[in-house]
């Protein structure tokens, strides 16, 4: 059992590191990420929605990185768990790539 947990932990760490490296390298597809962000996040994070209105320019790149590094601490962590690794990379590419202090801040949500 301990051995299994250890393997699982190693896999988890490996996944986190892999996603982190991929994010740092900007491997996601921002175009797809924009679509996924609207479909997955903007259902709640919208003006007059059930959660705070969010767009890429709501945060700095550093702040978005903190969010993506700590999705398990978010209130909507269950929604994040439904997303694939690729989906998360794509959403990251959109939000981080068009953040408040990014070279190309988003004009629309």
């Amino acid at each position, binding site marked *: 059992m301990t051995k299994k947990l250890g393997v699982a932990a190693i896999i988890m760490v490996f996944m986190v590191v892999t996603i982190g490296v991929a994010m740092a390298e900007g491997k996601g597809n921002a175009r797809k990420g924009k679509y996924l962000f609207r479909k997955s996040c903007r259902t709640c994070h919208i003006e007059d929605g059930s959660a705070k209105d969010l767009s890429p320019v709501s945060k700095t790149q550093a702040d978005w990185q903190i969010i993506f590094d700590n999705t398990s601490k978010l209130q909507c962590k269950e929604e994040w768990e439904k997303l694939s690794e690729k989906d998360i990379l794509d959403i990251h590419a959109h939000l981080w790539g068009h953040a408040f202090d990014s070279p190309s801040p*988003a004009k*629309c949500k």
Partner: protein
Amino acid sequence: MSATKTQMISRRKFLQLSGALAATTAVTNPYRVLYALTRDKGEITPDEIREVFSACDMCFNKCGLIAHVENDVIKKLDPNPNSLKSRGMLCARGNAGVKQLYDPDRLKYPLLRKGARGDGKWQRLSWDQALDHAAEQLDKIGKEYTRCGFLFMAGTDMQSTFVHQFAEAYGSYNVISHESNCLLSRNRAFLDTYGVMPTPDVLNCKYVIMPGSNRFEALVTPDSMDLMTAKGNKSKLVVLDPRFTKTAALADEWYPIKPGTDMAFFLGIAHVIISEELYDETFIKEKTFGFEELKEHVKQYTPQWAAKETEIPAKDITRIARELASAAPSAMVYPGRRSSDYEDSTQIRRSYAIVNALLGNWDQKGGLQVPKKIKPGSMHIEAPFYEDNPDDRVDAGRAQMMFDEEGSFKHTRDAVIEGKPYPIKGWMTYKTNPMQTGANRDKTIEMINTLDFMMTVDIAMSDTAWMADLVLPAPSYLERQDPLSAFLAASTCSGVITRDPVVPAMFESKPVFWIVKELAKRLDLGEFFDFTVDDFRKAQLKKIPQVAKALKEDGVYNITGPSFGIHKGKPFKTRSKKIEFYNTRYKDKGIDPMPVYKQPKTIPENHFRIVVGRNAYVTQSASTNNSLLWELEKENTLWIHPKPAIAMGIKNGETVFVKSLAGKVTIKARVTKETRPDTVYMDTGFGVLSKGLTNIFGKGACIAQVLEDKADKISGNMAMHETFVTVTKT
């Protein structure tokens, strides 16, 4: 997603039908007076006279106006005194807007090309025929080349947002604006220094250095008027320009700087301010990043060094630096607007931004400001995603830091011609004329000739429309309902404006909103345009009812309150959260983190550098055919200094050849001391190919035909001052 086949007919059948129905239609109108202006309804009763608020569209400034209407005919346009941005004024171009509306050269109905591209043979279509044909092409190209195989380009217009929305719903992210032929490198530079593009408070500024900008001719409201007012209040204006413009004529000091050396001038200014410790130490410490690096960096750029580069005496550079610092923080390097000049135009503008930061004029009266703004609501669409689309824009990676939502005309055009990284075979343009504004016209023609289909929506038969396969007539700004538009301007005059039809749309013209909505219906995308412009405006106004009231009562909503001292303690939108003298993102990308001066290319023997500019009565190519404005300038000329002209035996008014690696034109010479001996100049907007522009066809030369298409390395902005030409007698 597929097109609704029942609503379309095949191209073959369509052509058979339309060929049988109509012969080739002439574009030019033999009748020079419009029926609308000849209606005689007898005596006018008071209830037939109306005064209607609107916003000018003769350039991008959107000045407030009041249209005087009699019997549904606009008799004249007056300034709206409520419009703080336009300071209750309307310029000559604004007054001439009536002639854009009542122009016999206007496009009147949809036209389909019948001969070779550019031959000017057209066939009149009904709107249903035209829209069915366009939808069929959009569907076909989308299926064959992916949705990104269709390119969209929309100019500065209050309805351009709908073109962007249509492109998104259709599935193409290849959307470009006019801005990469204009100001993107300026925006890039200030964004990468301040995290925002500030507006200059010219009105309260005590000392303005204006490099290149020609604010008394290339009008920007309120800056043009404010600069004049400030001059009356003893503000000092120093102009750096190789041409003796009207702005130079009214300046306190004019320096005909050697073209391409502005950065050397401002690095020299920075050297003096830093070495003589003329800056505000607290401001530098609290609000800036990389001062020590900058201090070290500019040690090499002494005024004596800058003098050799710029041909401006070192003593003047030193004196100006001291005077600027003495007037700070009410002193500025005017950021300017069009910055499409050199391959390092972003870095040149970074040097402006850096000197402004040394003057500590951020958020100060008479400095660079980001005034309060009001954000109208919006109506977003949940656009679908097309899995077969490529990962990125067609021009991605061709510039170091391109704006994703603007793109680059130069790089997109190259990519379309090369067919790399993927083919683009369709193009829709709205309210933009790259055939005249994009350097290297032959290349634009080459690009168009690689396309399967091109459609243009415009008011008149521009050169771009002339090359299109399908031309759709749009109403002028005085005939249509637009969404709200918020604008930022310094000195307490930001606000919101909108337009409603002053008179009904003439001919068969239809607004681009209606056109994309009809196309969406035909492409099974109707759900994304299930609203009216009125619905859109209601969404915009939902949380700002005070704006609706002001627009109705005053024709404009002005934001009042101070426009400075409102960002105290707030972080800058940069990586360091401060004003960045040193840009770490640039360093990470292999870009010089501070501007490093590189000498402009040496002008080859017997050549001249050609530069671009404007006068007060033309807006690039959009207004040269306007019958009132055309009275002021019937054709453009080549400005050439007497020294080389005499040496070559060229007389004033004589026709000359102007030749570059891009092309050759003939134009009349204007021999004048108002330009440097090594620099020639001509206005934009003449030498048209379109026979549908009857006033200017056959007049003057097209500058886009001789400009070579270089680009700013960082932003992808066109670089239009990198061209050398020969001038010879014909």
